[in-house]
């Protein structure tokens, strides 16, 4: 739909341009120039000249209008803010503000938004009531229904700053807006000022949406990670869509801390390789991760190279000495990523791993020997770095 609108706008502008050349030719130039070719050429030049002048004038006018608007706001801002502050400190200034709003609606709206950004807690709640009394919430809700993206973005940005029940349904609806910016703004506002139910909804949105939204929301949801892992995550991990399971696990991995997580075994045996990789990555976040050693060793022999590489990385992170033999086999196996990951894991698990690497450096397999040498060297340089520090 959005793309169609852009095509239509572009075609419309191009047609308008061509039409203006034809109109100038028909209505003016062809009456004065006899040769039709020359007449058309002159018309084209006239329109071009007109467009260049229009572009230059437009740029000046826009700058001027912006400047005027700024100056007007700067003039009115102190009195509006004074009234609003007085209202917040207990003197009812609603009538005064309504009177100013009748004459300068844009300036009042802008000042209230500015104030909303500066205050927190109960003051913000009081200001939200004032915004409702001034009819701003209704206006922004209306504005959110606009076809224009910029208007919708603006409306959600402002509604998101409120602490008001009327804003929440709009923000929840905005979670399924086609525009990513709006989704993100709504989600972050809900996380800031809503309850567990809304936060759970934001988490579900994060699981289903693009990586951009997921990455931003993962950070915003970090403070609620424990609640989400207890109440919402099990439902998401039971999803029949492997992609949702994978993304839910990626979010948990990004939180990177010990959390009340459901049992990982079904995920480690999931038919989707991506889910197995993601499940392996969160194992260090279990308090008793070492007990999953046999599962990790099993996955070091997985048919999928990415799973083997992930298993090797997890074994390394957990310093899983019991996986040494399986890691050695992985080092001698196929797949460049898995071989390098196995070498690094062997370097991390301690002396048993180092001995295996030293042996492989002189081994006949070139890929394994290179990876072993590289891992040993990294180990050495990291140690040197630690000594230096």
């Amino acid at each position, binding site marked *: 739909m*959005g*793309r169609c*609108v*852009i*095509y239509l*706008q*572009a075609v419309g*502008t*191009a047609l308008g*341009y061509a039409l203006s050349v034809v109109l100038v030719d028909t209505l003016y130039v062809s009456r004065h120039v006899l040769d039709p070719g*020359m007449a058309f*050429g*002159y018309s*084209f*030049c006239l329109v*071009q*000249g007109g*467009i*260049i002048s229009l*572009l*230059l004038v*437009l*740029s000046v006018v*826009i700058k001027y209008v912006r400047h005027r608007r700024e100056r007007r706001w700067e003039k009115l801002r102190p009195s509006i803010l004074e009234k609003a502050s007085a209202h917040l400190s207990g003197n009812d200034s609603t009538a005064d503000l309504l009177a100013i709003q009748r004459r300068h609606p844009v300036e009042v709206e802008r000042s209230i938004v500015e104030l909303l950004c500066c205050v927190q807690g109960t003051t913000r709640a009081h200001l939200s009531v004032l915004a409702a009394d001034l009819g701003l919430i209704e206006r922004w809700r209306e504005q959110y229904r606009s076809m224009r*993206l910029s208007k919708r973005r603006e409306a959600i940005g402002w509604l998101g700053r409120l602490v008001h029940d009327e804003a929440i349904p709009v923000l929840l609806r905005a979670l399924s807006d086609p525009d*990513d*910016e709006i989704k*993100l703004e709504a989600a*972050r506002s809900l996380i800031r000022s809503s309850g567990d139910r809304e936060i759970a909804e934001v988490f579900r949105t994060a699981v289903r949406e*693009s*990586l*951009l939204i*997921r*990455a*931003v929301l*993962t*950070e*915003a949801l970090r403070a609620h990670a424990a609640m989400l892992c207890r109440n919402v995550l099990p439902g998401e991990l039971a999803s029949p869509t492997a992609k949702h399971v994978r993304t839910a696990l*990626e*979010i948990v*991995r*990004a939180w*990177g801390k010990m959390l009340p997580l459901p049992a990982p075994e079904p995920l480690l045996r999931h038919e989707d390789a991506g889910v197995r990789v993601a499940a392996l990555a969160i194992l260090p976040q279990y308090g008793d991760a070492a007990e999953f050693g046999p599962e990790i060793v099993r996955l070091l022999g997985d048919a999928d190279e990415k799973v083997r590489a992930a298993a090797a990385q997890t074994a390394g992170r957990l310093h899983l000495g019991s996986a040494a033999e399986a890691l050695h086999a992985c080092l001698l196996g196929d797949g*460049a*990523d898995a071989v*390098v990951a196995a070498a690094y894991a062997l370097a991390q698990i301690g002396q048993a791993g180092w001995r295996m690497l030293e042996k492989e450096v002189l081994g006949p397999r070139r*890929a394994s020997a*290179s*990876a072993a*040498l*590289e891992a*040993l*060297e990294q180990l050495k*340089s990291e140690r*040197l*770095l630690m000594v230096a520090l």
Partner: protein
Amino acid sequence: MIDWQLLFYRSFHYFCYGIIFYVAVINSIYFFLTVLGFFSLRKYHARLTPEQRDALIRSPLLPEISVVAPAYNEAVTVRESVKAMLKLSYPNLQVIVVNDGSKDDTLKILIEEFRLYRSARTPTGPLPHKPIRGIYESRDPIRLIVVDKENGGKADSLNAGLDVARSELVAAVDSDSLLEHDSLLQCVKPFLEDRERTIACGGMIRVVNGCHVRNGRVTTISTSRSVIALFQSVEYIRAFLGGRVALSFLNSLLIISGAFGVFRRDVVIASGGFAVKTVGEDMELVVRLHRQYRERKADYRIRYVPEPVCWTEVPETIKILKGQRNRWQRGTVESIALHKRVILRPKFGLLGMFAVPYFALFEMLGPAVETLGYVCTGLGYAVGIISREVLILFFCVSVLFGIVLSTSAVLLEEFTARRYPRTMDVVRLFVVAILENLGFKQLMTYWRTEGLIDGLKGKTGWGNMERKGFGTAPAKLGP
């Protein structure tokens, strides 16, 4: 009895009509692409907000990225460039500088400045390239890897960098360019929005001449005092804010500038890497990716985002500029010649039916036709076939249309990015947008025609680019 004079007049007449038709079509396409670019820019290219940027910088979910920068005799600028690359705001970053057998102190400067040690790392990728003499690494948390290899050209160096990299994404950059601190984040945005389908993304290149650079960062943006650099500033704005946005919207972008582009590493490796035997390796790779994906009927996106800014030093002398344009034109010729089979083949969709034919007809042959137009008009006037009015009209039409495109690009810049804070700079850009059509553009057309001829003859070679260095580049600024 054949009336030769009449035949000549008639032929010339039709030939002129042909050129007028050609000019009308090319200008209509330019105009449509500019308008389409304007509308799609307004709707689709929202910058990351500061909050989003902060969240992304902290996020471990972002894919790892390797910045691969080939360097050949870059001793003057390499220190600043690498420092700028290491300071980029991105959570999961690795910088790979490929020293392409430099004859100056490029490698020595890198080893000493960044205290590198010789590493045992070996390339794991399958791409062919000239032998690697050694790989050096830093011990810093943000890893700098320097690959020292025998001289093989830019594409060969990029292939070596791709083989050494192990990340999901690879950013191919010029080591003589400066990336803005959040340019990687902005350029990775399309991959984050549509991870499955996005395979490559290009960023906007701007002219650094005239700007203040300190510690690898552009601190004050200003236009250059050099007229040649100023002309190129407008040219870059026009190319990057108009046509490329529109072609990206149509998923028909054929060029991701060699100065800054992000690719999925597995995709580039699977496609065979950068082509070594062409001077237009950036365009060739993108056309090849389009072609391979369309042959497989796979769903994919090659995107361009106008925000991630890469600052590059442009030539300030006629000789070097001429060589650069000649090379660019030869690159276009080579890329089109290598992929001529897609032209007018419906199975390649817009690529075969519009993008490549458009490039072949207008970007590749355009300069020759334009030069021919100027010559014929002059000739026609000289022999009396064309009247003075027609001559002036032809000149006015072509110049005015160029002015419209250039001024609208500057206006678009002023409405969207607003990179030039001083009003004086914007005024200068507007003036230059008008003046460049009165000689400079015609000169470019002539050089590109020479490049076309050289390309058709199969001439190779890169030519030289003398660098001033970023530390000595700043223009005198007002108070």
